[in-house]
């Protein structure tokens, strides 16, 4: 068990604490706590009954080991690293905490707040959801409450969970004489969340459970008045207008400003926006009430903004603009990884970038705005990992992690540099933040993928044009055909994800030649139809190796270029992809494509092909003198065609 915990959470958290507490019964509790944390990642149910015991100790440990930048009052409401509201919160909490049966938390709050410093500022004042959750929980059996609570707590501190936890911890602290600390600590660093429970557990397990939910509620409420008027709303369609948004937003209060984040190169909406309300209560109400609201058939995600995330979004936006303009052709991924950002955190960036690629983020992305998750750089199409966040919501119920929780976690420095604006939105937007996403003890939130659902459009998504913009030689219509097309288009852009790229990398055999041929076509054919042309060509000439070979030789230079780009893409993509599979996939695509037309060798086929693209054929004929190697019919048609367009 210990091993798991060590791996999972902070080393300092797990390891050192373990060692220290090895002497007493707390150790076992600790172990359990950590175990629980690990479980949290994977299971929704937390049996945190034992959690409390080890917490206090852990808390203390944490404090000494990792002084938190901010002193959060366990409210969970704290905004980013600032401990702006700890004191008032503590007071309010104290007052509210009283609700807990038998729990005298007031006195404890003061001490609890001390603990909070451990917690990262990841928590946002995202109190909304928790309160509701706790309320409902009150009536339930303690165990149940615990479970949910624990679950939340278990998550990286950065998540809203932490907020809740903080609340709970406070209650807990009340219960546990003189041990408010542990509870609070649970906020800090996700893994420690659970420890809080154990403390209470020791004193009065039954009560502890109950208290927690209650506390959460109370604590959460005061958080609302932390002055946060900014929200991020994401997971919108790119055609969801600001007017639509405003009409819904105005129901919650006066809106100061709605600022959409869009791709700089095209002006297209990235699918998320930043809303500023006139007063924080409206913002909180909106966050609770509007989360999940369906715009044009798509449920949005609402998250509170934190000063850091706002700053990051803004800066990433700027970066994006500049970075993208330059890096666009090279593929967004590298850019996204914070090249332009200067963010300190490598980890998140890397993930973000990687995730995006996988998500088939193809959009222009580059522009500095990665902000949303698109990996910062990812062009327009950022993959939408979003589903997770939704799940998280359902999961959390009360975990309104959104926003702040997202990164703070225990990784203080990490937060400092959200790789790109994107990262933040993700974190923020995933109120439901799936624990699995959080990753192990990754305060940063361990984006396993673009958190923001909206950010990354699915590969075949709306942005086919986005890619086209970058690779003018690719026929946008081609994208609809399938992988093959994308592969071609992607040539110039790194945006596409691995699988697609794989198409390109087919170097040997049947697939390879066709691929390369296609490449050549695209480069040669110029803007239009390149992919289509190549596609047809490939299938068409499947059997005609000789001509292909000769053609390849002719276009040696072009081929090299495409080859190198292929290679580059290959390197960038996942290497473990099975090329053969890709070939097969490609072949399948081609087959389906072929179905549209008569069999390749048929004269009819040739006619169709030629007719449809007379210009191409013409150019091709010029470039490929050996076309006469093909079937006679083709030649005949070809010859005819050659003359026609030239009129």
């Amino acid at each position, binding site marked *: 068990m210990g091993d798991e915990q060590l791996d999972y959470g902070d080393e300092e958290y797990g390891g050192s604490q373990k060692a220290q507490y090895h002497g007493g019964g707390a150790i076992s509790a600790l172990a359990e706590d950590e175990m629980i944390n690990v479980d949290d990642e994977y299971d929704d149910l937390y049996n945190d009954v034992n959690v409390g015991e080890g917490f206090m100790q852990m808390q203390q440990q944490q404090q000494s080991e990792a002084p938190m930048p901010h002193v959060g009052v366990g409210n969970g409401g704290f905004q980013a690293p600032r401990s702006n509201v700890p004191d008032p919160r503590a007071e309010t909490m104290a007052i509210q905490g009283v609700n807990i049966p038998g729990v005298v938390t007031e006195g404890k709050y003061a001490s609890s707040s001390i603990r909070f410093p451990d917690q990262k500022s990841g928590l946002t004042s995202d109190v909304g959801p928790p309160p509701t959750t706790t309320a409902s929980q009150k009536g339930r059996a303690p165990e149940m409450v615990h479970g949910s609570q624990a679950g939340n707590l278990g998550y990286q501190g950065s998540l809203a969970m932490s907020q809740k936890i903080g609340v709970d911890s406070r209650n807990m602290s009340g219960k546990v004489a003189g041990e408010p600390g542990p509870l609070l600590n649970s906020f800090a660093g996700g893994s420690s969340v659970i420890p809080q429970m154990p403390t209470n557990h020791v004193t009065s397990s039954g009560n502890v459970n109950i208290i927690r939910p209650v506390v959460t509620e109370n604590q959460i409420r005061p958080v609302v008045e932390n002055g946060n008027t900014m929200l991020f709303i994401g997971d*919108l369609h*790119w*055609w*969801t*207008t*600001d*007017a639509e948004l405003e009409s819904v937003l105005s129901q919650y209060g006066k809106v100061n400003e709605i*600022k*959409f984040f*869009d791709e*700089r190169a*095209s*002006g*297209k*909406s990235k699918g998320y926006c930043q809303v500023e309300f006139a007063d924080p209560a409206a913002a909180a109400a909106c966050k609770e009430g509007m989360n999940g609201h369906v715009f044009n058939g798509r449920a949005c995600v609402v998250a509170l903004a934190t000063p850091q995330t706002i700053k990051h979004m803004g800066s990433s936006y700027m970066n994006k*603009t500049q970075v993208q303009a330059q890096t666009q052709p090279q593929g967004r991924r590298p850019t996204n990884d914070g090249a332009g950002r200067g963010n300190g955190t490598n980890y998140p960036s890397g993930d973000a970038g990687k995730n995006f690629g996988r998500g088939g983020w193809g959009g222009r992305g580059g522009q500095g705005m990665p902000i949303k998750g698109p990996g910062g750089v990812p062009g327009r199409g950022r993959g939408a990992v979003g589903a997770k966040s939704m799940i998280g919501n359902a999961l959390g119920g009360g975990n309104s992690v959104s926003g702040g929780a997202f990164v703070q976690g225990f990784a203080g420095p990490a937060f400092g540099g959200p790789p790109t604006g994107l990262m933040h939105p993700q974190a923020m937007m995933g109120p439901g933040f799936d624990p699995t996403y959080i990753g192990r003890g990754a305060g940063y939130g361990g984006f396993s993928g673009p958190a923001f659902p909206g950010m990354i459009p699915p590969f075949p998504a709306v942005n086919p044009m986005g890619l086209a913009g970058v690779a003018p030689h690719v026929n946008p219509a081609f994208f609809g055909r399938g992988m093959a097309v994308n592969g071609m288009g992607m040539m110039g852009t790194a945006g596409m994800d691995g699988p697609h790229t794989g198409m390109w990398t087919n170097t040997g055999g049947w697939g390879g030649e066709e691929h390369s041929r296609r490449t050549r076509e695209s480069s040669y054919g110029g803007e239009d139809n390149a992919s289509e042309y190549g596609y047809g060509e490939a299938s068409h000439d499947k059997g005609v190796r000789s001509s292909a070979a000769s053609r390849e030789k002719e276009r040696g230079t072009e081929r090299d270029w495409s080859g190198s780009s292929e290679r580059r893409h290959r390197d960038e993509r996942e290497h473990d992809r099975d090329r053969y599979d890709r070939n097969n996939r490609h072949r399948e695509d081609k087959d389906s494509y072929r179905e549209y037309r008569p069999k390749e060798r048929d004269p009819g086929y040739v006619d169709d092909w030629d007719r449809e693209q007379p210009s191409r054929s013409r150019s091709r004929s010029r470039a490929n003198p050996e076309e006469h190697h093909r079937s006679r019919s083709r030649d005949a048609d070809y010859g005819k065609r050659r003359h026609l367009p030239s009129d």
Partner: protein
Amino acid sequence: MVTSSSVVNTYPLSSYTFGTKEPKMEKDTSVADRLARMKVNYMKEGMRTSVEGILLVQEHNHPHILLLQIGNTFCKLPGGRLKPGENEIEGLKRKLSSKLAANLPGPQPDWQIGECVATWWRPNFETMTYPYCPPHITKPKECKKLFIVHLSEREFFAVPKNLKLLAVPLFELYDNVQRYGPVISTIPQQLSRFQFNMIHP
């Protein structure tokens, strides 16, 4: 006075006379200022409509556009913001005179405004403009319209002292976004449908 024809008569640069007049300073000292002022105006008057004129001359049988150069690098078309409710054509004439006509009392040049060849939209208070209004934007902040201006054979232009009037060939603009920006560098495409009548002296 809008002549809608696809033929544009262009005269050589030499058929025009250029003088100077007092400087016409930019109202904003920086981009930030400009955007801030734009914001203020938007609150007062709503979406800003700007009009700009494409004045064409010919040299060596190739159309050239008259651009006003500010400083050493920044080029812009003559034109400007319309007053609230002002007619586009009238407004453009007013702006052309303000920028290029002599301040002397007397007849102002009779500007022949042709058709609108391009419309650019500014969705936010930023420097980005697009040839369409992005779908998620219902309240663009600015709409900029480019009109062809048919110059007559003889004209007198008085150029403000702080500006330079350049005649830039189309091939210089084409595909030159870095130097001229997306609006001006794409003018050759907008004009490609016109037939230019190169009139020699």
